Every structure is written in structure tokens, then in C-alpha cells.
């Protein structure tokens, strides 16, 4: 039991549809706010569902083009030894990109593991805040972790992580979050 600090890759953003309507936001305004607050590149996402909630998911063609090059940059910074991640790269290379998320769900690798929607957020101003959750693929976790107040530090670290590899726009989907 306990919480952990995780570094992961966001692949899905789930947003309360009622909140967006209440705030009177257009889709374009919503995407602008997501880019500003989460540092993502919204053009890497597509609307996957518009029923109970708005679900934006990473485009398969973006993942296919940018995921492995990003992981090859990020893993060596996260792990001192290649054996923590080399099999992940090998197995991703051998799997069609459209199956990567399914593979993450069944993954036995700590360095590429579907975490689900632990990571929650709120954007906009009170009283019309828009709430949502982020589903991430965990790339690493450490802990146990407990922190009473972390918003400023995490926001700054998130900003730096998202801007570390400007040549790869998928970098902007990297997340730090608390798990558990």
C-alpha cells in the first residue's frame, strides 16, 4: 500500500462534457486550455468519443512515428541499465502500432505499463472549472511517496519535461503523477 511518484506518457484525456458546456467553451477553446495547462500538443490527439464524456486519444499515426524515438531518448535518462527497457523497444518494434495500447494493457514490463486514469486535473476558473482525467502509460515509478503540497513544483517539472525534446512533439505528452 502507499503512493508512488510516476513518470508516464499520456495517451487519453477524458473530460466531463457537462463542465465544458457549463463553461461555454467551444472545442477550439477547450483544446487551447488543454495545451496551456497540460503542455500537450493537441494536434497529436483526436476525438475518440463524444457520448458521456469527451475522450481525446493520441493518434495512432503520431504514436507510430514518434513513440519509439521518444522512448529511446527518455529511457536512458530514467534507467541506468538498458536491460530495464531494451525488451520494450524490441517488442514495440515487432508489434503493429495499432496494437501498442492493447499490448501495454497486458504488459509485464514496469517500464511500459497501462496505468489507467489515476491522474486528474481541473482547468479554467472557478466556478466554471472543467474537470478531467488522464490515462497514462507508466514508464517508471519510485516511492513510496507522500507530499502535502506539490502543485507548483510539479507544474514546473511538468513544464520542463514537456519541453525537453522539442524536436519530438510526443514529448509534450510525458507526465509526472502520483499513483495509488
Amino acid at each position: 500500500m502507499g503512493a508512488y511518484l510516476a513518470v508516464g506518457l499520456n495517451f487519453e484525456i477524458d473530460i466531463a462534457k457537462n463542465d465544458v458546456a457549463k463553461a461555454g467553451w467551444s472545442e477550439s477553446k477547450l483544446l487551447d486550455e488543454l495545451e496551456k495547462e497540460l503542455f500537450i500538443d493537441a494536434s497529436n490527439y483526436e476525438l475518440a468519443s463524444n457520448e458521456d464524456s469527451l475522450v481525446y486519444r493520441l493518434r495512432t499515426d503520431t504514436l507510430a512515428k514518434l513513440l519509439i524515438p521518444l522512448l529511446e531518448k527518455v529511457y536512458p535518462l530514467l534507467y541506468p541499465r538498458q536491460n530495464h527497457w531494451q525488451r520494450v523497444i524490441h517488442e514495440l518494434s515487432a508489434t503493429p502500432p495499432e496494437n501498442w495500447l492493447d499490448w501495454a494493457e497486458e504488459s509485464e514490463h514496469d517500464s511500459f505499463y497501462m496505468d489507467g486514469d489515476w491522474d486528474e486535473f481541473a482547468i479554467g476558473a472557478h466556478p466554471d472549472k472543467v474537470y478531467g482525467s488522464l490515462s497514462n502509460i507508466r514508464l517508471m515509478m519510485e516511492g513510496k511517496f507522500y507530499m502535502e503540497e506539490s502543485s507548483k513544483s510539479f507544474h514546473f517539472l511538468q513544464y520542463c519535461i514537456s519541453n525537453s525534446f522539442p524536436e519530438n512533439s510526443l514529448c509534450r505528452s510525458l507526465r509526472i503523477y502520483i499513483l495509488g
Partner: protein
Amino acid sequence: MGQYLAIGLSTKISVNRAELEATKWSFEYLVEQMSGKLALSLDNYHLEARPDEWLWTLRPELLAAELIPLLEALYPALYPLPDPDNDSEAVLRGLRERDPGEWMEWANRKPHYLFQDDPYGTSDYLRADFGRRVGIHYRDLALSMEGKILMEEYGRQFRFFQQCLAHRFGDFALARSLRVYITG
């Protein structure tokens, strides 16, 4: 009481010589481990061989040239919203009013929350054979603190964060001396 998550600049890095000798490591191998495993940019420091320790001190000319421009870029990212703790303008004004040679003495007096000498940051440890280890000890210029924090293990992630900071502020050699650490 308690510990805090801090972001700062490492102004001094030290290694106890007796501890190093007990490992049978050469000094060159130590430097290789510090640069590799801990991703420290020792080029930013002036090395001094003291009787009891190896001491790396941040080069004064680098600090004089880059501290203000780095903080001008970094503080707005740390404090993007109005915040009562944000006294960054006062820090920058205080630095501009002083000779660079006086900056560290000023930090020692802890003039501002966002600019204070911090001798309490956690150390790193390099493992050697037979359970021996070499402690890498830091003295930092704390630029941000938030907490309280309790974390059992954090080395790899914090190192990742530090390297992301160095990438983001890559226009400054001084950014390679930024550290994410626990203090208090």
C-alpha cells in the same frame, strides 16, 4: 520541521577522501561515476584538493555571467500565476544591486524564500564493492521549496527531472548545475 522538495543550484559538491580511499577507486573513476551515474556537469566547477575532501566549487565567472539571465528565464516558469511567495523581482533587483562576488554571502543570510543558501540537501551515494559507498554531498542555492514531502526512494526520477531542466534551459551552461532534491 519536516522535509521539502527543492529546486536549486548546486554551488558546492564534496567527497570525503578517506571514504574514497576505502573503496580503492581512483579519482578518475570517481569522476567518471559522478559524471555518468549522477549526470553531474563537473566542468561548471573549480576543483580543490583539500586535506580531507575533494571540493568542487561553482565557477564564479559562470555564476556572474549566467545567474541573472537564468533566473529571469526560470522564475516565470516556476511561478506562472500570482503567488504571495513569489519574491523573484526582489531577488533579481538584489542581485543587480550587488557585485557578483557578494551574491553567495547574501544568499547565506537567506534574504528571500526563492534565494537562499541551503546546506541541508540530501546527498547522493555511489555504491562500491563489499558494501562500501561514497557520499556525494552538496551545498545548494535553493530557488524553490514545497512540501512537506516524504519519499523513500527517488534517485532515478530526480536525476531525470534534473536532466529535463538542463535540456529546457539549455541556453545556459549554469542550467546543468540545477538540482532537484529533498531538503530539511
